């Protein structure tokens, strides 16, 4: 960050403003929008964790299923084993990470397109096992698991927080997601994260200097799956039910679209994508009353972006940044020109 010193104060101010906006936001919107806000925060974690995997250059189609592994895991552990929900959430996320670890052995023998298809197959197998009539005793078949225990109330001195209220759950998600994002950011900035980048752009070169690319790919997959699982757990204990179709490849398509529309080169790219599209979806499509058109809207946006803005919304940010000073400069120049003119 070359200009850190100059913009430090500004970024602090921006950060505080963002924090304030995030805290006030749920009080400004309608009830149904509050629900969407909770899901949006969960989706931010989902798509950000997805980005960590794409850092190594591989695009998985199993990420939403992995989210589902976390959701099913946490739901079952809290319901059947009666673990406290915060613990079951961590356990569910760990199961998601474990599943990713096991899947990495077959999947990382493949690359590129084969990995894409392989991850798709692996994800579908997991989803079919949830649906399978032989496994209904555990996973509840196509209807899934119902009556998942909610997040327990927190009673602290005079404070009594009831997470049934979407606003409270929103704050909970915000805290969990914020902590996760800091961890994800730290990982990316660490030596491990730099190695991920190296594997993406120069895997042969990375191997030649002694990087075990298989191990690092697995590491990226496991970490990203842990946080995908966590997002699934947050989802399960909020909605109260999980079912195989919630984690279908169609849902995966949306994650893919968020990531591509936002861009995956920067940390904020996918977040930009999911926030922009969710707002557009809720404001524009809801207002027009054309919910049926949702897939077409997403499909058209995906095609337009891949054709005309393949690096996503994030690629506009530097352009805007460059444009604002230039404009200021131009204005200043015009002003001086105006000031000089009468003098001539």
């Amino acid at each position, binding site marked *: 960050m070359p200009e850190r010193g100059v913009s430090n104060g500004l970024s602090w101010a921006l950060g505080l403003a963002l924090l304030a906006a995030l805290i006030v936001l749920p009080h400004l919107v309608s009830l149904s929008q509050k629900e969407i806000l909770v899901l949006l925060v969960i989706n931010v974690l989902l798509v950000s964790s997805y980005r960590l995997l794409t850092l190594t250059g591989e*695009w998985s189609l199993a990420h939403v299923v992995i989210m589902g592994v976390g959701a099913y895991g946490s739901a079952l552990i809290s319901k059947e084993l009666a673990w406290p929900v915060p613990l079951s959430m961590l356990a569910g996320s760990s199961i998601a990470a474990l599943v990713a670890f096991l899947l990495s052995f*077959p999947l990382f*023998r*493949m690359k*590129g*397109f*084969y990995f*894409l*298809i*392989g991850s*798709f*197959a*692996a994800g*579908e*197998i997991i989803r*079919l*096992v949830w*649906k*399978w*009539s*032989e496994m209904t005793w555990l996973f509840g078949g196509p209807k899934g698991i119902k009556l998942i225990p909610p997040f327990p109330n927190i009673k602290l001195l005079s404070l009594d927080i009831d997470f049934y209220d979407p606003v409270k759950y929103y704050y909970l998600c915000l805290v969990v997601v914020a902590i996760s994002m800091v961890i994800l950011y730290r990982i990316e900035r660490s030596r491990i994260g730099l190695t991920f980048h190296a594997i993406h752009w120069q895997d042969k070169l990375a191997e030649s200097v002694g990087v075990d690319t298989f191990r690092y790919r697995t590491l990226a997959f496991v970490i990203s799956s842990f946080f995908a699982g966590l997002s699934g757990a947050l989802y399960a204990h909020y909605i109260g039910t999980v079912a195989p179709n919630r984690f279908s*490849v*169609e849902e995966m*398509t949306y994650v*893919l*679209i968020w990531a*591509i529309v936002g861009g995956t080169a920067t940390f904020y790219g996918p977040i930009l994508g999911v926030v922009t599209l969710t707002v557009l979806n809720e404001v524009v499509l809801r207002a027009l009353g054309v919910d*049926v*058109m*949702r*897939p*077409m809207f*997403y*499909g*058209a*946006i*995906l*095609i337009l972006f*891949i*054709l005309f803005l*393949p690096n996503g919304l994030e690629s506009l940010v530097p352009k805007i940044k460059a444009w604002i000073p230039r404009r200021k400069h131009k204005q200043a120049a015009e002003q001086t020109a105006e000031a000089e003119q009468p003098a001539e």
Partner: protein
Amino acid sequence: MTTELFLQTVVNATYAASYMALIAVGLVLIFGVMGVINFAHGELYMAGSYAVVALYAALGMPFFVAVAVGLIFVGLLGLLMEYGLFRPLRDNPLGGLIASIGFLLILQTIAVLGFGVQMEQVPPSTQGKIVFSDGVVLTYQRLYVIIATVVLLSALWLFLRKSKFGWALRACAQDREAAALQGISINDTARLAMFIGAALAGVAGALTAPLVAPTPQMGHPVIITAFIIIIVGGVGSLEGAVLAAILYGFVSTFVTTIYDGTLANIVGLLLMLIVLIVKPTGLFGAKERA
């Protein structure tokens, strides 16, 4: 398993293998020439089915006229994809794949807007059937699919081997730059491959419409099936796709009959994963295409 049930399952498997082969061969042809995996292939199949729903079931046109229109209509959809998506993204295979996901969402929405989300019931075009014995029956409706597959794939094979266009198509599939240097028009061959590939999916959808109750989501299991087949057969190999379609058609039908459909899907996907791990070039040869 009784002999009769066994024979009936063989008949059913032959039918399943037939329409799977039509779909998978189209997908492989597109991949071979364009270098793009067409995720919207299942939705092209769906579009073929809806052509029959609209023209035959709703408007009462003769069944085979509706099938022919469906074939041409879906072929034209293929041309549209080639022109609008794959040509601008020619140097970006993953981009083409992602764009085709966008296209499938659009096709699904059009089907929902035009026909609704419910299952369509298409009346059979014929009640005729061949009765081998008491428990072994092949309806004409299914026979049409088997005959169409044999005729169309034989015609395609002859076309690819004997005609000048076919040579050009195969040359493009092997090495696009070299083919262009020999004076072969890349755009023309791409158009041709997309038209044929899409039309094959369309005709499969049109012919099976009375047998499957079309819905806007029907492409989803179809694309999974097609992926299994092209991976098992070896991506880029037409003969491999046909052989894999027969293999998978039999495996899937027998597992479905003996156990259940979900297990059949799991077995298919496991087969695909194993092939991907052990022999990514597919069971039936064809060298890997970069």
